[in-house]
């Protein structure tokens, strides 16, 4: 089977083509093309300022863009964020943005889409993270950093996205929590939800990703499997190592 045939058989869930993005007059993304398949964990690597977070925000419709963003073939470019969320893309920002004055349960309710439960019910979420059940009626603002990170991922998950984009979920977490986040991501993918991950910790990304992209100066500079990246020390030296 040739590479071309394979892409026909498993059409990607998300396909981004030649995406350009601007913050005001600064040109941040210079034509990014990538795909994420069904149930696939794909990581975006690169140094700070490479444009990874901007790429996620651009896909989410929060930045002015040019180019195509397709989810299951449907073009989403130029749509407003809430429409893109309804189309099936979930986004967990680096800033986490929990609603600190609302309870854990209220935070989760805000993640739910009208029209009943889908793949993830409130109970599923609580089973995934029992600590969220015990703290369901606690103000989210008093949770620990790790618990807040779990809450923000779960809040997006409960809205039943086909693809969840997560920006730096392990940032500032204790090693034990880092491992827990990694396990959570694998469990999410095991249910058929695709993950596009921005991750600074190379070990985690290599461990859980099916495929990786490396970004530099607003472009994709490498694409391949974790093994391919391990076999390419020159890529790591030029684009990842400090």
């Amino acid at each position: 089977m040739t590479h071309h045939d394979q892409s026909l058989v498993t059409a990607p869930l998300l396909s981004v083509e030649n995406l350009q993005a601007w913050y005001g007059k600064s040109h941040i993304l210079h034509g990014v093309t990538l795909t994420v398949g069904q149930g696939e964990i794909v990581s975006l690597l690169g140094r700070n300022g490479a444009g990874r977070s901007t790429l996620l925000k651009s896909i989410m419709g929060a930045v002015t863009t040019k180019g195509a963003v397709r989810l299951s073939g449907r073009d989403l470019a130029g749509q407003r964020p809430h429409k893109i969320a309804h189309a099936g893309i979930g986004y967990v920002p680096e800033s986490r943005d929990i609603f600190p004055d609302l309870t854990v349960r209220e935070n989760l309710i805000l993640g739910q889409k009208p029209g009943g439960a889908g793949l993830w019910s409130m109970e599923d979420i609580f089973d995934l993270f029992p600590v969220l059940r015990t703290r369901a009626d606690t103000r989210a603002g008093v949770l620990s950093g790790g618990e807040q990170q779990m809450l923000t991922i779960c809040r997006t998950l409960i809205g039943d996205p086909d693809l969840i984009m997560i920006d730096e979920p392990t940032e500032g977490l204790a090693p034990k929590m880092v491992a827990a986040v990694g396990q959570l991501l694998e469990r999410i993918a095991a249910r058929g939800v695709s993950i596009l991950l921005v991750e600074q910790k190379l070990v985690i990304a290599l461990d859980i990703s099916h495929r990786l992209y490396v970004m530099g100066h607003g472009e994709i500079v490498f694409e391949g499997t974790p093994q391919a990246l391990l076999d390419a020390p020159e890529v790591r030296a030029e684009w990842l190592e400090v």
Partner: protein
Amino acid sequence: MGIEVVTFSVVNSILYGMLLFLLASGLTLIFSMMGVLNFAHASFFMVGAYFGFEISRRVGFFPALVLAPVAVGLLGALVERFGLRRVHKFGHLGELLFTFGLAFVIEEAVQMIWGRSPQDFQVPAALNFTAFTLFGTGYPAFRLFMLVVAVAVFAALALLLARTRIGLIVKASLTHPEMVSMLGHDVPLVFMSVFGVGSALAGLAGVIAGPVLVTQPSMAAALGPILFVIVVVGGLGSLAGAFVASLLIGFIQTFAVAINLKVADVFGLIGVTQPPAAFGALLSDIWNVSVAQVGPVIPYLLLVAMLMFRPMGLFGKRA
């Protein structure tokens, strides 16, 4: 001051405070969302009074009580959708100037349509009786009705915000609008709705206050500054703060009028009965100033003191 004056002043303070809260609640919600004080908020109050007057004349007061706020709410939603939202990209200063200008436009429009003189907006006959008599003085039923309406709206608003999904969306949008929209909620629609509901509450306050206060073009300008005092003293963006500050201002303004105490009386307590002659006429003028005379200034003194010593307000989280 007799017990009867105190009793009636307390009731009037609560009534005035709740009326102010009908306005301040909408203003503070709008402020929390947009980060901009809506200078035209009191204008919606005035438009509510005029709409209420016109609708009352034709179909009666009680239909007006519902229809006028709805009409004002729609007007507010249109102002947000086609005015503020377009100005938004020019920043807060642009939005501030827009609402400032809008207040003048509304006042001029009201004068063009209804003229400068007060309208004959009367208390509806069904409520024009004495509710109760205390210490030989009657209390008008309409004032009691105003109190009931204000408290009912306050309770409904509190329930809506605390117990419903819509309330959660509004509360979360106040602090994290971007995140809320990325969870799939149409935040611009939420903003427009809150602006509309806030305007409708101001309109409702106008309908129930119209027959008691005077329905005239200057009524917006008379009330506007007091609203800002409430929102700042309560803490920008805090509903609980707006509630406490509304009652506080209600009490201050009502009791200031009722207290007939002069500067001279205060000094009289420590045995000084004449102003020191050395300061001449200047001091003798101050000597005869009564609390009732400085009453209108007290809220602004409170505002200045609050900004100096606690700029985040009573319940606010940011300065």
